[in-house]
């Protein structure tokens, strides 16, 4: 009896200690200099906005590593971090060691330029003015489209509950607003009045504003609302993985969101410059663009997008004078200044 109690007491002490030791070994092993190579590999540090994570990690990075290895024999590492575009921008402002950043809005690049992190318009010197890929804004609806939504204008119909990311915090939401405004504007007889009416109509039906495009998506997937305005890429990627359980509706007119690359020279050590430049150039290569396509993005080269649904009247932010004007006139001027006031939100 006594001996058994002692045994159990021992077990009660030994087991946790063993467990802790095992955990410690598990945690420490990768940091031990056991199989340390002669020299650590060179690295590229890339910060990107969230939806790029998979296409880069699993698509573009391995392609580049292979190509670089066959070309030079050197193995390089790509270190990445993904968060909302605004977050990435702020992180860079705070000094994270990003060498390359991929932002969902040129607006964020402008912010970096304003803070002196990168020279103004430095990204314009890259191919396609620094745009690495794009994706149009589409409408996601419930399977079988029970509310028969065909276009942005249908989102304004009474009774449609729209889930929308919040333009104050989400880059995607800014794109969506310009998409909605542009669709109204470009409608025959639209013009500024049409744009305003479209925004007003859609936003009258917005029932939830999520902090990010991603969060809006999650809300919608959890069964909230009837329609979601979001990137085509997200839906395509889900379809590719077989997890899409809603239908994609292509509006007649919509915007292509264009994703801008900036290179933060001050974070790049001189000896890595060639490597970083090679990677930057690689992003517009066929192999990289094909990888993006695989993950649902549209290539900057329209010829590669033939397998994807045709957008009848696609437009870009330059049609509205670039982001600095669009932000001021459409997002702040029309949406914030008039639509929200009108709706009393």
């Amino acid at each position, binding site marked *: 009896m006594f001996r058994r109690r002692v045994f159990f007491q021992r077990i009660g002490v030994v087991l946790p200690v063993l467990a802790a030791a095992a955990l410690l070994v598990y945690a420490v092993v990768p940091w031990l200099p056991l199989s340390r190579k002669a020299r650590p590999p060179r690295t590229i540090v890339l910060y990107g906005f969230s939806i790029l994570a998979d296409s880069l990690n699993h698509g573009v990075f391995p392609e580049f590593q292979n190509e670089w290895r066959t070309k030079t024999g050197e193995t390089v590492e790509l270190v990445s971090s993904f*968060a909302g575009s605004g977050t990435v921008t702020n992180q860079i402002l*705070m000094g994270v060691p990003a060498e390359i950043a991929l932002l969902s809005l040129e607006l964020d690049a402008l912010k970096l330029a304003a803070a002196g992190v990168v020279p103004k318009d430095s990204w314009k010197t890259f191919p396609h003015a620094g745009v690495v890929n794009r994706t149009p804004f589409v409408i996601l609806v419930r399977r079988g489209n029970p509310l028969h939504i065909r276009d942005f204008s249908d989102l304004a119909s009474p009774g449609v509950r729209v889930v929308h990311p919040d333009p104050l915090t989400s880059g995607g939401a800014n794109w969506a607003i310009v998409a909605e405004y542009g669709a109204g504007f470009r409608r025959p007889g639209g013009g500024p009045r049409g744009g305003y009416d479209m925004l007003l109509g859609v936003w009258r039906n917005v029932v939830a504003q999520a902090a990010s495009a991603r969060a809006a998506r999650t809300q919608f997937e959890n069964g909230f609302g009837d329609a979601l305005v979001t990137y085509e890429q997200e839906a395509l990627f889900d379809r590719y993985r077989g997890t899409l359980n809603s239908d994609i509706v292509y509006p007649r007119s919509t915007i292509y969101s264009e994703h801008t690359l900036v290179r933060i020279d001050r974070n790049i050590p001189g000896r890595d410059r060639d490597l970083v430049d090679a990677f930057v150039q690689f992003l517009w290569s066929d192999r990289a663009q094909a990888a993006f396509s695989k993950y649902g993005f549209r290539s900057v080269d329209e010829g590669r997008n033939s397998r994807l649904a045709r957008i009848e009247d696609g437009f870009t932010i330059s049609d509205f004078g670039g982001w600095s004007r669009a932000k001021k006139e459409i997002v702040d001027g029309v949406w914030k200044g008039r639509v929200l006031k009108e709706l009393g939100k």
Partner: protein
Amino acid sequence: MSAALPVETRRRRERTAFAPVSILVLILLPLLLMPLGAVFVFALRGGLPAFWRAVRAPEAQFALRFSLLIAFLTAGINAVLGTFAAYVLSKYRFRGERTLGIVVNLPVAIPTVVVGTSLLLLWGPIGLLGKLITPLGIQPMFRPAGVLLAHLFVTFPYMLGTVKPLLDELETTYEEAAYTIGAGRWTTFRLVLLPALRGGLVTGALLTFAHSLGEFGATVMVSGNLRLRTQTAPLYIFAQFEAGDIAQANAIAAVLAALSFLIFFFLFRYTARTKKAA
């Protein structure tokens, strides 16, 4: 000890406890238990192989190991620092003692995001001190060291909170008894004081460990959130969530939750045992 209690009273106690206990369980169910259960349900919804794949992903492995490493380091370093702080605050009387007592407990009251921000504003590349040391090639932020700093800051009060009450309770004569018998200061600390503090040390270290494992707010600010470099498990979960890999996020969340359960299970058993021994 409880065996000495007459069966009659015990049974009655059980019966009267039924109503309040069931109310409590009803409250706790949606508040705590069900959300935790949901994590496991979702983590395993794709089947065990999918769960295993998710856990085996290199980024996930890195995040878990990194989190554990930081948690071990944090618990170890703060065990020493916290015990020292507790000793000083408990055994010495000095001007500003109260203020110092408040300062060391401050991290409890400060939002962790603020902790992260303040660390960045001090050590970061554009921070007050960071501006001076960055040109020297020293920059703790966005590196494992920065994560460790943040975790040390955030978890500092736990050790203090569990060790200081024990020290307060020990009269100075406890040490003095050892001195007069012939034990030096260090021997006294090792053989007399430390064993008396063991309960507090274990509890404090486990609390520190658990908190460090789950730390998010400060870490997200100072780590730079670099995959395979500075991404802790909670950051990984959040990043996966943001990128849409909810299954992946759930799998790691389930692992973290299981680890925390384990820690608290030991903690609970340990405190129960030491209480019985006392």
